[in-house]
C-alpha cells in the first residue's frame, strides 16, 4: 500500500509545527495575553499576512498546479470581506442605535430602529433605505454562509462560461482581470448598495464585545487566521497529492492529452477555480475585520496581479512556496511603503522607497521569472539535493533514441 498522507507530504507537518510555534510566540509577545513586546497594530499586520498566505495558497492551486493564470482572485477575497463586513457594520450600528433610542420616552418600534440603522449606515451616500443586498445583514449565520456562497457562485458561473468555451492562457487572464475590474467599478457606484467608494468601515469592532480591548480582539483574529491557514494548507495538500493532483498537473502541462485520457478537463478546472474562490473568500472574511475597512479599491485589478507576483516569487507549484512568497513580499511591502526604510541618497537624486518600492518589486519579479523560475521555494531543493534531470540540448530525432545533443557527443 501507499504511504500515509503525512508520510507523502512531510512539508505539511513541518508547516503546521512552524505555524504553531509562530502563533504561540505572537500570543506570548503580544499585548492581549502576553508581555506586550509586539504592538497590537503589528499583531494585526501579522494576522492579515496569514490571510494573504491563505489566498496565496488558493492562487498556487489554481495557477501553480492547474495552470490557470487567474488574475481575478482578489475579487473573491474582497467579496468575502464585504459579506462579513455587512454583518459587522449592521450589528454594531444596531447596538448603538438601540442604546441611543433607549433613552427616549416612548420605546421605539422595530421599524424605527431599522430606519435609524439605515440612516446611520447609508447617510454617507445620501440614502437611508436598505438595499436588497442587505436583506440578511442582521443574521451572522447567513452572512457567514454568504462568505462562502457568493464568491463560490460567482466563480462557478464565470468559470463555467469561460472554461466551456475553452478560453485559456492569456485570454483567460484578461477575462479574469475584466471580471475584477467590472466588480470594482460597480461597487464604486453609490447606488450599488455597499456605500460606494466609502466602503464598509469600523469592522475592527466586534458587536457585543465593546468592553474587550483591541489588543485581545487582535489576538482572537490572529488565532482564527492561523487556524484557517492551517486548515487551508492541509486541504490544499490533500487536493494536490494523490490522483487528483496528478490530473490537475497534467492539465497544466498538456490539457489536450488529459482529455484523450477521458478526463473532463473543463470539470476539473471549474472545480479548482470554484474551490479556490471559496478559500479566497474565507481569507478575505478574516482579513478585513483586522484591516478595519474595506472599499472597492481593494479589488482593483492590480491587487490580483500582486497575488500572482507573490506566488511567482515564492515559487509556484509548491504550497509552502506560495506561503513564503506572500509573507515575505507583503511584509517587505508594508515595511517599504510604511516609510520606515531610510531614503537612499545618490547625490543628484534621493531614492524614496515609498515611491520606488513598486519599481523594485517589478524588477525582482522580472529577475525571478528569468533566472529563478522556481522562486524562493527553489532554495529548498538545494537543501534537500532534489533537482530535475540535467538534460541540456534539444532532443535528437526519434531515431537517435534517448540521447540529447550533449549526451550524444560524449
Amino acid at each position, binding site marked *: *500500500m*501507499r504511504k500515509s498522507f503525512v508520510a507523502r507530504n512531510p512539508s505539511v507537518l513541518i508547516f503546521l509545527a512552524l505555524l504553531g510555534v509562530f502563533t504561540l510566540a505572537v500570543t506570548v509577545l503580544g499585548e492581549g495575553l502576553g508581555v506586550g513586546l509586539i504592538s497590537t497594530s503589528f499583531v494585526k499586520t501579522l494576522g492579515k499576512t496569514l490571510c494573504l498566505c491563505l489566498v496565496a495558497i488558493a492562487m498556487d492551486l489554481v495557477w501553480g498546479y492547474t495552470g490557470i493564470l487567474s488574475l481575478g482572485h482578489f475579487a473573491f477575497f474582497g467579496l468575502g470581506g464585504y459579506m462579513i463586513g455587512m454583518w459587522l457594520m449592521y450589528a454594531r450600528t444596531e447596538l448603538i442605535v438601540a442604546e441611543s433610542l433607549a433613552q427616549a420616552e416612548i420605546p421605539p418600534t422595530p421599524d424605527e430602529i431599522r430606519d435609524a440603522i439605515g440612516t446611520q449606515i447609508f447617510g454617507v451616500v445620501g440614502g437611508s433605505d436598505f438595499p436588497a443586498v442587505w436583506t440578511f445583514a442582521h443574521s451572522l449565520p447567513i452572512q457567514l454562509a454568504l462568505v462562502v456562497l457568493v464568491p463560490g457562485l460567482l466563480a462557478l458561473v464565470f468559470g463555467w462560461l469561460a472554461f466551456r468555451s475553452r478560453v485559456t492562457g492569456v485570454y483567460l487572464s484578461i477575462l479574469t482581470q475584466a471580471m475584477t475590474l467590472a466588480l470594482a467599478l460597480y461597487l464604486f457606484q453609490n447606488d450599488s448598495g455597499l456605500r460606494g467608494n466609502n466602503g464598509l468601515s469600523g469592522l475592527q469592532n466586534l458587536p457585543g464585545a465593546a468592553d474587550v480591548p483591541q489588543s485581545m480582539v487582535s489576538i482572537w483574529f490572529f488565532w482564527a487566521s492561523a487556524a484557517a491557514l492551517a486548515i487551508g494548507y492541509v486541504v490544499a495538500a490533500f*487536493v494536490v497529492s*494523490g*490522483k*487528483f493532483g*496528478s*490530473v490537475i*498537473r*497534467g492539465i497544466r*502541462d*498538456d490539457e*489536450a*492529452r488529459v*482529455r*484523450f*485520457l*477521458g*478526463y*473532463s*478537463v473543463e*470539470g*476539473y478546472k471549474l*472545480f479548482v477555480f470554484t474551490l479556490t474562490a471559496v478559500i479566497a473568500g474565507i481569507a478575505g472574511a478574516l482579513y478585513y475585520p483586522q484591516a478595519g475597512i474595506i472599499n472597492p479599491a481593494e479589488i482593483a485589478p492590480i491587487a490580483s496581479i500582486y497575488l500572482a507576483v507573490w506566488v511567482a516569487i515564492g515559487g509556484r507549484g509548491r504550497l509552502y512556496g506560495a506561503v513564503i512568497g506572500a509573507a515575505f513580499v507583503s511584509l517587505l511591502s508594508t515595511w517599504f511603503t510604511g516609510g520606515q526604510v531610510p531614503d537612499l541618497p545618490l547625490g543628484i537624486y534621493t531614492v524614496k522607497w515609498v515611491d520606488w518600492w513598486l519599481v523594485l518589486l517589478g524588477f525582482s519579479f522580472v529577475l525571478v521569472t528569468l533566472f529563478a523560475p522556481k522562486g524562493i521555494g527553489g532554495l529548498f531543493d538545494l537543501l534537500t539535493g532534489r533537482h*530535475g*534531470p540535467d*538534460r541540456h540540448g534539444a*532532443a535528437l*530525432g*526519434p*531515431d*537517435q*533514441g*534517448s*540521447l540529447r545533443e550533449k549526451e550524444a557527443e560524449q
Partner: protein
Amino acid sequence: MTTLLEVSGVSVSFDGFKAINNLSFDIGPAELRAIIGPNGAGKTTFMDIVTGKTKPDSGEVLWGEMSRSLLKMNESQIARAGIGRKFQRPTVFEDQSVFDNLLMALKKDRAPWKVLFYRETTADKARVEELAEEIGLADQLQRKSGELSHGQKQWLEIGMLLAQEPRLLLVDEPAAGMTLAEREHTTDLLKEAAKTRAVVVVEHDMEFVRRLECRVTVLHEGSVLAEGSLDHVTKNQQVIDVYLGR
C-alpha cells in the same frame, strides 16, 4: 461480422485545402488494421476526427453496437466511450513518475469528486505493475517519465493506452525511434492487444507493417486508395505510382 467503428463520407478542409476527402472506413471489434500512406495523406487528421479533436465538415462517424454518433461527443466523452489514442510524438506527463502516469490512465471513474477521494487499492497497484512489466518499465516505476528515453516514452504511452482498456486503439507511428528489437516487441504487443479489441496502426515502415500480418488501408490525398492484404495493395498500380514508386 459487426462493425465497431464506421466512418462514412467524411470530409474536412483547412483553409480550403481538403485534408480528408469523402473518406469511408470501418473496423470490427477485434481486428488489427494498418493504415499507410505518404506524408500529408491525412492519417493523423483521420485520427483527429475519430477522437473528436477535429470536427469534419460533412460525413458521419458511428460507434459501437448502438451506432452512436461520435460527432456529438467531445474528446473526453469519446475517450470514456472506449477509444484510446497514441500520438505521433510521445506525449506523457514528463513531470510525473511512470507510476503516476499509468495510474492516471487506469480505467476508473473519472469524475472529479471520485478522483479526489480515490485511494489506490492493492489490485490497482498490481495492475500498474503488471502493465509496467509488459512495457519493460517495471524497474522504472518511480522515475520521472521525463527522464526516460524516447523509445521508453513510446512504450509508456502504449502502456497508458492499454491501462485505459479501450475497445479501439488508434496508434500513430508507434515504432518511431525504436531499435529493431523494440519494434518486434511492439508488434507483439499490438498483435496481442488486437485479439480482444480493435487496433488501428498508422505506420510508414513497410517491414513493420508486414510483421503485423493484417489488412492494410492505403490513404492518399485524404481518401482510401486501396484496401486488402499487404501483398494485394503493393501490387496495385495506383499505390505503386503514388507511394511505393517514390
